[in-house]
C-alpha cells in the first residue's frame, strides 16, 4: 500500500503546480514553483533517486527561484498615487477591508499587461503629488468623481484609458464617475 506521506506529496504536487499557473501575481507563482520543486525532491527520495532529489532541491527550489526573483525585480512597476484630500489619513486596516472598484479595475489592467501595480495612498494635495517623481498615474478622488492624471509619454496610460472607458457603465452603476486627463 502506498504510504500516506507519498500520497500527500503527490496531491501537493498537483495542487502547487495548479496554483503556480493560476495565481495572477508572478512573484507568488515563483514561490509556488519553488514549493513544487521541494515537494518533487521529496518524491524523488521516496522513489529511491537521492541523486536526482539533491539536484532538484539545489537547482529547482533555490537557484532557479533566486534567479526568477532577481529577474522580476527588474520588472516594470506601475506606480499609482491615489489621493483623497478630504480624508484625514489612511489606516492600514481600512485599506485591507475596503478597496474601491476603480482601483480594483486599475489593478486588473496591470495584471493583464504583466505589470506590478504599486498603489500609494495619500491625503496630500494634487499639486504636491504632482511634484513627486516616479508616478505613472495619479488618481484623485472627490466624492464619487475619480480623476485620473497620466502622462502622454507613458504608453500604458492610453491603454488604461481605453480599458476604464469600457468599464464606465459598470462603474456608473456604482455611482462612480471617471475623468481622464492626459498631460
Amino acid at each position, binding site marked *: 500500500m502506498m504510504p500516506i506521506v507519498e500520497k500527500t506529496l503527490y496531491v501537493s504536487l498537483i495542487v502547487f503546480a495548479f496554483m503556480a499557473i493560476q495565481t495572477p501575481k508572478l512573484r507568488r507563482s515563483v514561490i509556488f514553483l519553488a514549493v513544487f520543486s521541494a515537494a518533487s525532491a521529496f518524491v524523488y527520495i521516496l522513489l529511491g533517486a537521492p541523486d536526482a532529489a539533491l539536484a532538484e532541491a*539545489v*537547482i529547482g527550489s533555490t537557484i532557479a527561484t533566486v534567479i526568477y526573483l532577481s529577474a522580476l525585480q*527588474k520588472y516594470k512597476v506601475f506606480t499609482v498615487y491615489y489621493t483623497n484630500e478630504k480624508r484625514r489619513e489612511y489606516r492600514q486596516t481600512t485599506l485591507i477591508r475596503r478597496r474601491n472598484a476603480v482601483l480594483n479595475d486599475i489593478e486588473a489592467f496591470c495584471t493583464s499587461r504583466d505589470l506590478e501595480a504599486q498603489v500609494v495612498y495619500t491625503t496630500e494635495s494634487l499639486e504636491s503629488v504632482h511634484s513627486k*517623481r516616479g508616478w505613472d498615474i495619479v488618481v484623485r478622488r472627490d466624492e464619487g468623481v475619480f480623476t485620473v492624471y497620466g502622462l502622454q509619454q507613458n504608453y500604458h496610460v492610453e491603454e488604461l484609458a481605453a480599458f476604464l472607458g469600457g468599464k464606465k457603465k459598470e462603474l456608473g452603476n456604482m455611482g462612480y464617475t471617471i475623468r481622464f486627463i492626459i498631460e
Partner: protein
Amino acid sequence: MNEEKHSSEILEDILQFMYPLIILFGAYIILTGLSQPGGGFQGGAVLVAIFMCRYLVYPDEVRSMSLTKRLDKIILIFILALASAIMLMSFREVFPFMNKIYNMAIGILIGIKVSCGLTVIFFTFAEIKGGEED
C-alpha cells in the same frame, strides 16, 4: 517604493558565520559524490550560494565577472584535457589505482566549473538594469 539598498547588520553577521558551512557542505557533496548521492554538479550549485549571499549583503558592490568567466573557460579546457588524456593514453589500464584520483579530480573540476557558470548567470540576471526609473 524604491528604498535605497543597504546591508543589514544581522544579515551580515549571520552570513559571515554561514560562509564556512556552505563551503564545507559544498566540498562534502563534491568529494563524497563518488560513492554517495552528490557529485560535482550538485556541489558546485551549493557553492554558488556563497556569491548569492554576498550579493544579498552588498547589493551595490561593483563586481567584475571577467575573472570568473576566464576561470570558467580555463576549467573547461582542463576537464576536456584531463578526460581525453586519460582516455587516449589508457591510464586506467596502466595505473588502476589512479581511477579514484581521476574521478575525484574530475568531480572537483566540474564543481568549480558549475559554480563559476552559475555565478555568471546569476550576476547577469541580478545586475542588468531593467526599466526602473532610478
